[in-house]
């Protein structure tokens, strides 16, 4: 009895090839059923995301040919496409799954979405009846490892995108964002993404202002906010908590001189300014004012970069934790496999 894993991932294939081999959710049950009918396959789980399509198989034959299986699944497969396939034997397969569940194999190192995707893949396989004693145990163990790695290391700490870093900072200044007044100044792509990030963390009072009022209205409707004419945005400043600015103005539109009288009326409430414009919309001197925190693109990118570096450093610690779990599972699997071989020998004595 053997475990092995094969498939493609963002590490072995580009997006075109990954699209070719992806299995949509709607086709997963059918694919699992067909996989279960392949001679020699005892258990199977199919993990298909935008970054990977992986088959986890338990089979009696460790040399199970995967090329015919791929031809059966995807129609004629060219040799050049098969070069993107990877195949892992038992222990590396176990290690690979644990690393995948922990986010160590993800394109964005340490991301947590993959954990849910692995869980859904396993649940689909369990519903289709293609899992058994080995893969049940392997995947349960993978979920345990994923949780352990996330809680015991800093692999998921911090954010690695500009929008998420800005929202993390906003939460560290204000706590919950639901009662905060947020203005999006300039309806560009970056500010829209940041607005969505803020909304996803509970922001409710969003205002959009843009030179083109129509664009402001479109974005405001999309994010469930209110559009404000560009000439009026400064009137709202007194009540604002967060300003996301990304206009195409050639000079700073938020200056110390403009802000000083407003700050006196704000009664000591902090103001967080996310300046995503290039050239910058906010005079750097504004950051020196009490209770005002200005973060521009460079500073947000620097924080994201440092977080990624921290995560990279953490991979060693993660691998150390994973290796212990791999060993535990290997010991259990070898015991089971030996028992199965023994039973097979009793049932089918050599003549």
């Amino acid at each position, binding site marked *: 009895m053997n475990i092995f894993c094969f498939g493609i991932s963002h590490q072995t294939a580009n997006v075109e090839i990954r699209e070719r081999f992806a299995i949509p959710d709607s086709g997963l049950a059918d694919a699992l059923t067909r996989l279960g009918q392949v001679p020699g396959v005892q258990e199977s789980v199919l993990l298909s995301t935008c970054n990977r399509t992986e088959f986890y198989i338990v089979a009696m034959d460790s040399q199970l040919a995967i090329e015919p299986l791929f031809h059966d699944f995807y129609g004629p497969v060219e040799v050049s496409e098969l070069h993107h396939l990877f195949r892992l034997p038992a222990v590396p397969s176990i290690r690979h799954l644990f690393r995948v569940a922990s986010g160590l194999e993800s394109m964005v190192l340490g991301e947590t979405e993959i954990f849910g995707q692995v869980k859904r893949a396993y649940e689909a396989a369990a519903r289709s009846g293609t899992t058994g004693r080995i893969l049940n145990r392997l995947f349960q163990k993978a979920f345990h490892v994923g949780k352990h790695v996330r*809680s*015991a*290391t*800093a692999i998921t*700490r*911090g954010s690695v995108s500009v929008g998420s870093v800005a929202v*993390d*900072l906003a*939460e*560290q*200044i*204000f*706590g919950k964002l639901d009662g905060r007044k947020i203005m999006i100044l300039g309806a560009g792509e970056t500010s829209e993404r940041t607005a969505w990030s803020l909304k996803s963390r509970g922001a409710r009072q969003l205002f959009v202002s843009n030179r083109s009022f129509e664009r402001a209205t479109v974005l405001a409707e999309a994010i469930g906010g209110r559009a404000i004419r560009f000439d009026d945005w400064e009137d709202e400043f007194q009540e604002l908590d967060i300003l996301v600015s990304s206009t195409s103005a050639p000079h700073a539109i938020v200056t110390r001189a403009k802000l000083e009288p407003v700050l006196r009326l704000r*009664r*000591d*409430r*902090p103001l967080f300014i996310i300046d995503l414009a290039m050239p910058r919309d906010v005079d750097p001197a504004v*950051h020196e004012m*009490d*209770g005002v*925190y200005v*973060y521009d693109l460079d*500073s947000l990118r*620097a*924080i994201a970069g440092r977080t990624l570096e*921290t995560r990279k450093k*953490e991979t060693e610690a993660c691998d150390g934790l994973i290796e212990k779990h791999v060993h535990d599972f290997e010991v259990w699997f070898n015991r089971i496999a030996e028992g199965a071989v023994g039973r097979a020998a009793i049932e089918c004595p050599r003549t």
Partner: protein
Amino acid sequence: MLLEISICGFWVFAGVRPDSLLFLFMNWSDRVWVELALISYLVGFAYSVYSLASHKFLTSRTSFWAIIAGFLLTTIFLFDRGHAIGRCPITNRFEVLVFMTWSMVLIYLVIGSSYRLSLMGAFTAPVASVLLLFAVAFAPSQAAARRIKVNPWLEAHTSFSMVACGAFALACIAGVMFLLQERQLKTRHPSSIFYRLPPITALSVANSRLLWLGFTLFTVGLATGFLIGDRINWVQAGWSILVWCVYGGIIVARMRHAMAAKWVAALSIVAFSLLLSTFWGIRFISDRPSF
């Protein structure tokens, strides 16, 4: 015994003669509760430091339970000592320091959960450890003579004043945490601790409310001091009024928004440092009425 050896090691390292440390091995009485509480707070402190330094991001449950244990042990001591002397156990510096620590931790336990200030425990534990370390190492712990007749105004005055000091201590801790967050935001270089500390606005609110709580209790303590009915000690009274004015000034400035939150935080640290440093010079609490 382990604690005694550790403390001895610390003070020998600090240049204190070993023979002068013999007092630590004597007087095994109810002070053992305080020593055990000190161990608990040190454990909580060490665990928080380990958790933060190792980036393991372990839950702060261990620190929290260590603080709970320390609080219960000091409660036992205060109950035991109070029962023995027949009055509120604030009759010498040892008892005062223990009572101040107890008050500070009590307020932390009450407000900590309300303001999502869980990591405040990591900052409360070291302050509690330092206060108890000073109590154990420097302050004689002999119990005062049992009182037959207790002056309720004196009891109210001393206990309100001490609980107020506990609130001021926590305001100081919230101030330290605020300035830590503020600095990281201003330098645009947030470290891992930044994301574990509470939001800066929550710290500002906690700082203000603790100052208010401390000031209210201190005012009651001060007022009841005038009702004790004994001759007023004007040195102590003057010092108490000065402390009251300093904290009152900070609160008024905060109310009138004349001062940024960071200056309020900084001043709550300065004011508590002033309170602690002058504490030894002023016979704040004595067997006699304070003033």
